[in-house]
């Protein structure tokens, strides 16, 4: 399908000129990285920018490294790069496993995790892992650089803390010093590529610290303070899991839409929370668990 509206295309050679373009267009420019969302929106006419700023040539955004206890993911790093990275598999397997649930191979080859959090749809698969590990988003503009905790990033569906003249440079994920394991469970309508009907991410440390996040069950992905408080310091057993399941409905606010009913989403968040917690603790205990097929 043709794109019917006119726009200019810029491929800046430096980060500085990219930021200058963002300043100049005052919100009328769109960043092009993977363009897997953007190209569709352009064809459908749901976005009509005056300019596309292609950042794929900026090598300073290609970083994928472990620095000072943090995993640093540049804005140009694709999901497929995360899936295939030995570093990610070693330091933060939940990140690679979450990346594997995103769309299809073709899309993952182009789409970036930074672009994913900028699209900020409620169902985004990268949110739970970033939330449970307390990631930080580094953004920059001609006005300067700032760090936004992921918990402050998502403001509303498709709206983030990013200002019109700002560019995401990288995402930093602090990797806990103690032994830990995170698990993301995604509910899709089938095994093929799908947007999450609902998703649960958990992280458990050997000290029985628990982090719990949900996606696709509210306007923005969220962390559950209540569930974390309930679980903190305790060893999982059937009674505790039953209690945790009972807390789920008050922690999320799913809607009924074409992808699932509110009722099914709540029910499945309970099921997935239990399975994710069991899987994460099982993995910590050295068990072999197929995290790809928990539901």
């Amino acid at each position: 399908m043709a794109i019917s509206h006119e726009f200019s295309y810029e491929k800046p050679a430096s980060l500085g000129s990219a930021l200058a373009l963002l300043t100049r267009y005052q919100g009328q420019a769109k960043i092009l990285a993977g363009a897997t969302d953007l190209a569709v929106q352009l064809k459908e006419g749901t976005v009509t920018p005056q300019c596309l700023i292609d950042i794929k040539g900026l090598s300073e955004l290609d970083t994928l490294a472990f620095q000072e206890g943090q995993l640093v993911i540049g804005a140009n790093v694709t999901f497929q790069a995360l899936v295939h990275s030995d570093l990610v598999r070693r330091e933060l397997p939940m990140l690679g496993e979450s990346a594997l649930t995103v769309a299809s191979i073709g899309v993952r080859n182009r789409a970036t995790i930074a672009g994913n959090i900028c699209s900020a749809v409620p169902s985004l698969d990268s949110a739970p892992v970033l939330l449970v590990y307390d990631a930080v988003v580094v953004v920059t503009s001609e006005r300067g650089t700032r760090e936004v905790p992921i918990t402050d990033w998502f403001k509303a569906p498709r709206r983030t803390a990013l200002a019109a003249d700002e560019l995401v440079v990288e995402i930093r994920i602090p990797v806990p010093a103690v032994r830990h394991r995170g698990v993301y469970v995604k509910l899709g309508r089938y095994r093929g590529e799908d947007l999450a009907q609902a998703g649960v991410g958990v992280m458990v440390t050997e000290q029985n610290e628990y982090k719990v996040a949900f996606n696709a069950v509210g306007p923005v992905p969220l962390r559950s303070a209540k569930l974390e408080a309930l679980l903190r310091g305790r060893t999982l057993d059937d009674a505790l899991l039953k209690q945790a399941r009972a807390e789920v409905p008050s922690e999320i606010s799913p809607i009924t839409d074409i992808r699932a009913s509110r009722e099914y989403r709540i029910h499945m968040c309970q099921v997935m929370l239990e399975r994710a917690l069991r899987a994460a603790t099982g993995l910590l205990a050295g068990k072999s668990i197929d995290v790809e097929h928990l539901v």
Partner: protein
Amino acid sequence: MENYRNIGKPEVRIDGREKVSGAAIYTADLDFGPNLLHAHVVGSTEASAEIVSIDFEEALKVDGVLHVFTARDFPNYQFGLYMKDRYIFAQDKVRFHGEQVAAVVARCPKAAKKAAELVKVTYKKLPQVLDQMEALKEDAVLIHPDLENYEHVPWFFPKAKTNIAHWRKVRKGNTEQGFAQADFILEDSYHVPRYAHCAIEPHCAIGKFDLSGRLTVWATSQSPHTQRHIFAEALAPLGITHHDVRVIAPHVGGGFGGKAGVTMEILAAALATKCKGDPVKVQWSREQDFYNTYQRLGVVTNLKIGVKNNGKITALHHRINWDAGAYVEYGANVVNAVGLSAIGPYNIDNVSIDSVCIYTNLPPGGAYRGFGYSEFLFGLESHITRIAKHLGIDEVEMRKINGIKEGDTTAYSARMNPSGLHEAIEKVANEIEWGKKETSKDPNKVIGKGFSLFWKAPAMPPNASSSAFIKFNEDASLNILVSGMDIGQGYLTVMAQIAGEILGIPTHKIRTENPDTDRNPYEWQTVASHITWSCGNAVKKAAIDAREQIFDLVERTHHLHRETLYLEDEKVKCTQSASFELPLSDFVINGIQVEDGTFKGGPIIGRGVFMPEFSSTNADPETSQGGHPNVHYTVGAGAITLEIDKETGKMRILKVVEAVDVGKALNPSLVEGQLTGGLMQGLATVMFEDMRYDANGRLLNPNFTDYKLPTAKDIPDEVIPIIIEVPQPDGPFGARGVGEHTMLPAAPMVANAVEDALGVRIREMPITAEKIALAYKAKMEQSSKDG
């Protein structure tokens, strides 16, 4: 058993290499040069509204835009396959969301799209009806107030001043008595939503009205000749006749019924007539393919079956209410076909069927693989299982007790053709290990088994025909000229196998090409799973015609009795003379030289025609008794082993088995392909696909983001296709149709397996994980309440 050379062999597809290597040219690939014009269609944003005005002044100002066309350019040009109820552009009112209202023609797709966005259409909303049960009510708004004036085939019975476009009634025996004799009666309703074909290739058509007044249309097509006929009829006000129209159909990237008849192709044909000299291309997007071609009709049924305690069915009443959409010119025949056959593959004495075609303000319903049979079989085969359970009879046994046999009578009292139904039941039951309970290793999961029978007849006019030419080339290779379409089933290859068998030519030396209605002889349509049977008969006759010409010539020149001649290995041979071997390549073009130096014969060209001369739709409209509307039924059985996660409702198909009586598998590997592919398509409609509309009749999921087609990750662990061969007496080498049937048992066997595993009965398709999980959860909550 005949000793065939080509027939019954798993020959490689003759179009296979071309397709898998990317060499094959599809309609959208055709190059028309720099003068090609592009049309962008403006679709209605209302489901039911009066068109107050169309303002396209701004659109015409866009650089590269040549014209904007509307209904004013084609006033009251009505068309349709079985009932002329649709228009080239919406006339004074729109009847579904997305209906074509105007088209911009421009020099490039971008300008056309940009201009289309500037066309301002003002609507005045009219009352709408999106649900067929609402449309049936007495005070419902009339979608076609002029229904009684529409031309239609004689076997349709529209009800004037209602939304009922056709009502097929079948009455056999005495249902009142039948139900009175019953020990048990089960009555319930079943719902099936609409579905989309989702062929990988979206619709595309290019029309060219040349300076001599010749109209050529290149189209993604299952029916080039029928399209030519409809174009000629629709454009008759312009003075266009059949003689002026030519349809060329390149390779098709999947049809499934969606490219039968005429939908968007009319736009390419009509717009071309206004742009004389230049080709005009209409390329549907995926979204348009969803909402403005045909869709599978939605269904609400009410089914009542009476049985004796021994399992024998005494009476059946089947009321089937079809959501046929805004235009039913094709869809009404789905309704008709099901009316005649909604008894299923059973021998039942007392039958009453009402199959009712109802207009709604949703997109037009039309042909879809299975032609309505999947829809009614969902309820019928669910019902059989439920009744058997109630009676305490094994459900497979119940199906054997009532299953139809050769010579039994159908609902319209014709005799049933030879059938391997009972063999199929046996083989499927054995393969699925029916009666053996299986348990999952995972405590969250349970395993159930489901069974279903199916049948289907081709739905076609009684005089639907096929024809074929066969011509020899110098090297004794063949060109077969036919007008069916290879929509994946392997038709081109099978026609080559048939001709090759008769003429002693290997399949790889035979070309069967896609049709051009100017060059290729008539074919009705590639629908109804009739093409192997019908066109196969025509090809066989053409091959026999060519063979007889060869024998005539050899008899005349070599003085051998024709009864002693036969064809083998590209040679004429003689049963009486082992040394006589005359290569076909010696004479099939240039004739045979005789003693005096002259030549006899000339190019060998065979001709064959097939029409089912025994078929008739002349029947009592109140009972459907008296005619012979269906040529034969293809039957079979399927079964499934389904593992279900009790908490999530997620299903995994451990094994699925399907047996179908194809009469004769002309090419067993192609039949297995149909069995496997059809099953996958059927299972997709059960487990994932679902068209959803909002309150304004707008399709919410015209995309693969929310209309889910299963992927390679979702296929069953094991698929077992079983071929049964009880020959069809009038089929080529005993073959009968198989293409559509393979998806038919999917829905009921899944529903039956879900009940077997979890004790919950789902009566509304699709049967998603969500529905199962919530139904099971409700059941468990209820039983814990009941204590």
